[in-house]
């Protein structure tokens, strides 16, 4: 599935690729990506729809923890590849733009 890449989406992918094997929850990712907290969920769900992410609820008792179960997100192998490609593509375009500017 092809996703339109926006700056917030790229920032989230970069945050994931900083440590692709670590599961992260929404707020944690938003802060790491430098996004305004509260704006990240449409991005995460779009990636999940595309098969780039999988998510799971943490296995804790919400009553014991005193909070709802967190949902943890992890890049799928397809998502890791797609994220690297998307970020590399952005880098290439930026390089081309820089060269054009230089000329």
């Amino acid at each position, binding site marked *: 599935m092809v996703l339109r890449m926006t700056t917030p989406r790229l920032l989230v992918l970069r945050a994931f690729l900083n440590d692709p094997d670590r599961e992260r*929850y929404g707020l944690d990712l938003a802060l790491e990506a430098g996004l305004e907290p*509260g704006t990240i969920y449409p991005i995460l*769900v779009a990636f999940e*729809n595309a098969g780039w*992410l999988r998510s*799971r609820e943490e296995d804790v008792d919400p009553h014991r923890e005193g909070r709802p179960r967190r949902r943890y997100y992890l890049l799928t192998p397809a998502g890791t590849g797609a994220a690297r490609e998307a970020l590399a593509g952005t880098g290439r375009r930026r390089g081309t733009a820089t060269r054009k500017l230089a000329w």
Partner: protein
Amino acid sequence: MTGRVDRAVVAALGLALPGHFRARQRAEWTADLLILAERGRLARWRYLFAATRTLPALRAVARRLPADGPQGALAPVSRSVVLVARVLTIVLGWTVVSWAVMLPGRYLLLDIPGRMAAGTLPDPKSVWPGGDQPALMAPVAAVLEWGGWAAADDFPLPLAIALVASVLLVRHRRQLWGPRRRVAAVGVAVISLQALLLTPVDMVVTAFTTIRGGPVLPLAGATASWLAVAAPGLSRPRRAVLGLLGLAALAVAAVDATIGTGMVSWYRD
């Protein structure tokens, strides 16, 4: 803690989302707001404003998210289902492991059929973990012995289920609602009464009918297998363990009633 206003806003925002996704997203927002509570009211309001601003985008993508399946939202699971799943995991785990060790494990490794054919009948109580063993082995032997009986003769199972359910219920209630221990006491009483009624029935069914092994083990195995398939709110590892134990329990009941009758007769000796 999040304030009443925050909770009301989260509830209202959730109404704009598809039904299958609503509980999941409300849980996400609520958990985030609990963390942001340390940063003050302004941070929470900014968060809620940002969530409101991106709500149409979230609604659009959430509508395409499947209601179930590996990438979907997990349905909220009831406490009763979790309790039943935990009880079955513990009781069936104990029964299946004990059966594997005490029945086929000993029967085959110690060559009981060969020794019986040679004219000796080794007493199951005299071979490992029974017989001359260190005193420290006694509790392990007792646990395995009773687990073997649960697998072979069924009757300890209702009591084991009642015991495990009572312990889990009491622990659970004490942690959650200290003042509501009376509810736990009533639950334990009901479970114990059922076990006390079921145990003699189970013993009679096993002893005086052609049903070999009794009905509780296959019933518990079938319930565990069904929960593994039909309770999507449970985590995937928990469902996998339940499914495996359910199938193993059904296999134990089938073996006991067919090719394992000689082994079970030896164990009952």
